[in-house]
């Protein structure tokens, strides 16, 4: 094709037109999938989770190679946790069956969102794909993913693997789709589509705001900037180890990582010592200045250091740090707009501020979150319940992790919070969800509510199947072929009628049987055709 012809064909509507077709297909897939029973849904979700788990290491490597962010070993752990482990967790809950609540004369029917449009970030690309796909699958939704362009390759691969596995396990075709060439106008086009049920936006603030202004329901979350208060009742060695473990995890790329340690003056020196022993380099004042310039010299956070190791960041300011250095500690004297190092830092550079007492720490924690990270996460290391409670009540964070690494703990690992890579920042953080986002956010419930008058008896729903009846489900696998009845020669072929949906779990077997019958009939006919 000549360049001129190609240029004429490359209209502005090429990408949006293709995306509209993806949405239309997803709509079909969602309509069928919303009628699947729980056993069949779990089979499909398990298949997707297993293939995700099997590729956890390979895709962790691919992600680091492609983006340059983070640590392969840590990404592998995240990938494993968001595949098999997450499935096991979700499988305990039932998002597919009717709930009969005779005590309140109510039947509750799960109604999936339909199409989930999921934006996934470059920082946690593969595990975010895993997590969002599994949430969609267990709630009987179709999902269209739009990966961050910096992590396109590994994200697309992850989505395609899960799509193949899900379809192999019986999911309707197109249940998981991925936009392979995402760009801003295209994403905005899809976000505004009336076919989208809900947008799951993880990414930068502009993207999240754009999701909220699309006119479609959206779950988007704001940035983090977690304070970590250490008071004089804390076990300092434990606290130091946990802070270092958290801040160095995947080179601090989770938005739940600690931003600034607020150390009560009486234990501050001992805590510094403990942090050093745990792998921190305590920066000298001129090094702090250099770090400030490196991280925020251009006004906004320098993405060149995003997810880089402490050693690499040290090298950038001319420091030759020992290879086992995990975190660089930058002591600062204030929290506020005039100290850039008190902003969110998605790299293992950790602020350190001395506070006179716990109450002063709470005040500074509030200041930190005023700067950014409203509604996100905070950590405290303390044995003193009144302080912990006061901290939780004062700081505008919707999860406060106690005596645990914040990166992992706030994301639901090592605490009993829900494991999540989308951390609801709630009303503090201009978000519709304040919890760790889970499958429950992708499904509504129809409530069939009886008259409370005891004279009106509640029906017996116990043996009924809400998803039975109606025409057979279209699964998108093959365009049907059939002969009619009036056509000559057709009388010898009795087309098996598609059976109405009974229990959706039995469709596989029926379809196979029907195919078998059809094949036998056709064989017979083929022989008879020439006689």
């Amino acid at each position: 094709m000549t360049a001129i012809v190609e240029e004429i064909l490359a209209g502005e509507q090429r990408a949006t037109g293709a995306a509209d077709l993806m949405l239309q297909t997803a709509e079909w897939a969602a309509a069928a999938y919303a009628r699947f029973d729980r056993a069949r849904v779990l089979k499909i979700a398990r298949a997707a989770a297993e293939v995700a788990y099997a590729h956890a290491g390979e895709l962790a490597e691919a992600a680091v190679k492609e983006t340059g962010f983070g640590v392969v070993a840590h990404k592998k752990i995240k990938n494993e946790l968001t595949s098999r482990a997450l499935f096991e967790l979700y499988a305990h809950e039932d998002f597919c069956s009717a709930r009969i609540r005779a005590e309140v004369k109510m039947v509750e029917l799960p109604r999936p969102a339909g199409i989930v449009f999921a934006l996934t970030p470059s920082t946690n690309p593969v595990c975010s794909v895993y997590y969002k796909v599994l949430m969609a699958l267990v709630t009987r939704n179709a999902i269209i993913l739009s990966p961050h362009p910096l992590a396109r390759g590994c994200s697309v691969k992850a989505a395609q693997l899960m799509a193949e596995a899900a379809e192999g396990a019986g999911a309707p075709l197109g249940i998981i789709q991925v936009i392979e060439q995402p760009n801003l106008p295209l994403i905005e086009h899809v976000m505004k589509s009336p076919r989208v049920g809900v947008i799951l936006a993880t990414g930068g603030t502009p993207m999240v705001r754009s999701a909220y202004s699309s006119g479609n329901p959206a779950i988007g979350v704001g940035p983090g900037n977690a304070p970590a208060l250490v008071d004089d009742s804390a076990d300092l060695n434990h606290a130091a180890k946990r802070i270092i473990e958290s801040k160095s995890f995947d080179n601090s790329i989770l938005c739940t990582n600690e931003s600034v340690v607020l150390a009560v003056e009486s234990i501050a020196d001992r805590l510094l010592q403990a942090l050093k022993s745990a792998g921190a380099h305590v920066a000298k004042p001129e090094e702090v200045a250099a770090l400030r310039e490196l991280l925020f010299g251009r006004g906004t956070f320098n993405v060149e250091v995003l997810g880089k190791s402490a050693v690499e960041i040290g090298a950038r300011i001319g420091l030759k740090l020992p290879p086992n250095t995990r975190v660089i500690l930058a002591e600062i004297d204030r929290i506020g707009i005039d100290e850039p190092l008190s902003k969110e830092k998605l790299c293992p550079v950790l602020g350190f501020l001395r506070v006179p007492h716990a109450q002063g720490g709470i005040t500074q924690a509030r200041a930190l979150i005023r700067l950014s990270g409203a509604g996100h996460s905070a950590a405290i290391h303390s044995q003193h319940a009144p302080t912990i409670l006061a901290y939780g009540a004062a700081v505008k964070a919707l999860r406060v992790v106690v005596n645990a690494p914040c990166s992992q703990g706030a994301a639901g690992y090592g605490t009993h919070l829900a494991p999540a890579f989308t951390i609801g920042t709630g009303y503090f953080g201009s978000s519709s969800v304040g919890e760790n986002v889970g499958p429950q956010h992708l499904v509504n419930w129809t409530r069939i509510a009886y008259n409370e008058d005891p004279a009106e008896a509640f029906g017996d729903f116990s043996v009924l199947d809400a998803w039975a009846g109606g025409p057979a489900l279209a699964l998108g696998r093959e365009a049907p072929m059939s002969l009619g009845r009036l056509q000559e020669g057709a009388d010898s072929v009795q087309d098996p009628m598609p059976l109405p949906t009974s229990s959706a779990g039995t469709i596989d077997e029926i379809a196979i049987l029907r195919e078998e019958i059809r094949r036998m009939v056709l064989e017979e006919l083929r022989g008879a055709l020439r006689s």
Partner: protein
Amino acid sequence: MSDPKPQSPEKREFIAKSKTYWNPGKTQAWQDMGVDLVIDRREGYLLWDMDGRRLIDLHLNGGTYNIGHRHPELIEVLNRGTQRFDMGNHHFPSQARTALAERLARICGGDMHYTMYASGGAEAIDIALKTARHATQRRKIVSIVNAYHGHTGLAVAAGADRFKKIFLSDNPEEFVHVPFNDLNAMEDALKGKDAACLIMETIPATYGFPMPLPGYLQEVKKLCERYGSLYVADEVQTGLMRCGEMWGYQRYGITPDLVVTGKGISGGMYPIACVIVREPYAGWLTQDGFAHMSTMGGAELGCLVAMKTLEILERPTVKPMVNYISETFRNGLHEIMRLYPDFFVGIRQCGVVMGLEFDFPEGAKPVMKHLYENGVWAIFSTLDPRVLQFKPGVLMTADLCAEVLERVERSVGLAYAECLGRGGRGKIRAA
């Protein structure tokens, strides 16, 4: 039954004019059938009559509007194309014609290297038949009884008597017709080794989409090979994903020697039709490249639109979408069949190529009329009026399919009451 809306004075006046200046016979025939359609605005799979009535288009003019009316991407490419090109000069090599030919060669695969261009399907059929005659140096053309291939010289001669006798255009010496699905008759027609080719629609449309019996097309292809005749696949109505693959013949496991595509390839936006030919049979292109020509055949703007149409159809989501649409209609129509088992008796189907069978003389006509009155436009089969041609587009949305099924159920009920209610053959179901 709801009374059809009265015509506006404007429409009445217009229909009179249509009879005066355009085609009195055809205009009147539609009025007699209760279909007073004058298509005005159109968009996607929707039409609006000049009196403002909305209709869902399940006729698509034989698949011309396969991807919908006025597809926005086609409008865009046509606009962009006119900034630089026009129809072109058919004597010279052309960027657009070559690009489309290259794309068709890739899509068809094998040694289907060459594309010959026409401005419409019938002209393309003529080119295909001429090409087969040149390649085999034989004159005889075999086709199916009651076939339909268009209205030009060779195409009309290969078709049903209905359209050729009136114009004294039949030629029984050279054009032989055999019954569909009859292999013995086919062998008899070919075994003289004097047939240039067999031409057939993969699924004969105007005949009401009778389906090839299992193995039939494969055996026919073998017979062609055995007796040295070429196999010309008329894919005008079955191609372009309508059967679930790009070409209908792919569903039947055969590879033809020549493929004719028309209607849908134009996107309904710019007339064009194509013949794709296997390399060994395209000899005239080398021997005398000027032997056939057509000023408007392969107009460059048409080539651009055709390329965009193919690009859209090749998107990976289209195939599952066609599967969903055709499955949904099959499943939904079977539910309706259960309601009227002695009237709506069968579904002929290959993807979105569908024929609905009504076991009543000319039973598809009242169904067509009631569908029309209920907002759906689908046409009966001229050559088997018990069968309604039911031709959804390949990009229909789930909501529109659901709406069609709901309207079909209502309309079949009304047609049933009209056909069988009074005759006492069946019970009247409250519709």
